[in-house]
């Protein structure tokens, strides 16, 4: 369980670092920070509409990674369900 806390701590640190990358525009950083909630209107979703902003932004890379880690590690899944299995070694 202690490892989970370590990973969450790393996640928060990385979140902070990414927030730092937005410091060029400090006035908007708070407004658009990672965990700030804002009711976004449809015409304000231009950035969200970009392909890079999809949660799976490169399907083939994700597919290949899932297969590699499924073959080499005991933990699987989390992102979705479906897809073919394999007798991986």
């Amino acid at each position, binding site marked *: 369980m202690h490892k989970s806390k370590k990973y969450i701590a790393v996640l928060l640190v990385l*979140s902070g670092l990414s927030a730092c990358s*937005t410091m060029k525009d400090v006035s908007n950083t708070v407004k658009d920070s990672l965990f700030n909630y804002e009711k976004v209107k449809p015409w304000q979703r231009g950035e969200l509409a*970009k*392909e890079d902003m999809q949660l799976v932004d490169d399907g083939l890379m994700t597919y290949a990674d899932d297969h590699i880690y499924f073959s080499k590690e005991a933990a699987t899944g*989390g*992102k979705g*369900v479906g897809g073919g299995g394999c007798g991986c070694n």
Partner: protein
Amino acid sequence: MKSIQKKLALATCSLLAHNAQSVMAAGAEDWAVDASFLHYEEEERITVNKMIGTLVTNISESDKVKVDLVFDTMSGSTPSGALEGAGSFTTITTPSGAGGFSASSGSTALAEFSDTRLGVSLDWEHTKKRLYRINYGSSISVEKDYTSFGLNTNYAQDSSSRIVTYTAGVAVAFDDVRRSTGGTPEPFALYGGGETLENGTRVTLDTIFGVTRVFNRRTLGQLNFSTGFNEGYLTDPYKLISRTQLLDISDPSAGFDEKDTYYESRPSVRQRSSLYGSMAHSTRNDNVLHMSYRYYWDDWDIVSNTLDFRLKIRYENDFFIEPHLRFYDQTAANFYYFAIEQEVFGPNGFPEYGSADYRLDEIDGTTLGFNIGKTFSAHGKLRVRVEHIRWQYKNSLFDVNEALVFQLSYKKLFE
């Protein structure tokens, strides 16, 4: 106006819960083709060449179809679970040219193998009343010693404001497991002895429930809960486990003798669950941060954490560099043993279940790599990535495995 409509459609698509293979949110284009070549190479172990092709097309204003093709060639050697020191012990034998594992004379712990895999999947997504989407999928994967057939369906519903999307999905898979010579070995039979049993079969059922939310105009997040089980033949028909005896019972550091080698044995049920959170955030200077965390647990007592971090740094001329960092750890399965120790189980005794498969050991893994890409026109995108993966095993005979991944992909949209 059409451009705005497309962007709104894409924004809607970005709220969808995506399957791992999904490129169905590629856009409103009529056709999208994505093809990839991947080379995976472990140091003195396995080499895999993988070709993947995906085709997505709109067949009506509310229906989309996706076809995936995968072809893998795999060869090299992999730890069998047996220990070294048994002289001319031959790991696993198959007929010449039959693929699968082959004799590895003189090597007790590494088994050579070669195989090919062909996978095909077909997905159909239907949108109803703009706020509801349902996806039906099927897949088949064939190897010389493994066949898998799966069905799945996923449902997504947007809130009226389209700020939140609720998703649910279920998948079932039916697998046939066998050695390349056919059949499966009797669990805990002495290597080379015992009966050859019929092919193993297993059923896998997975469910997923998720919420995706727009936090602000630059941040999107998702939380999934997944649970499922495998039931049937979950043993690896190629894996072995050795019995050892200490050379000096009063001094364990003096070493041990390998007495015998057996086929492994695993439970026939596995209940798995995970919590998965991910987010995408566009920074003020237009870089995109992707982060995810997964907490996994199962009734084999495997608990795992996975943290993934990518930062896509976008430059002018549609060029990007994307560093990638991944951390992984897992605890060992409750039936994982380095070997069956004679001092614990006696000269002829066995645990209820036992496997020396390195993938069930306690593992720490780290991935470091980068992905670069360039969009050449409004409809073509090239990506190249190189990654290094290192796994550290706590108790396995081979305590480190390192791999290099190279992937070249090109995506083309047609209107």
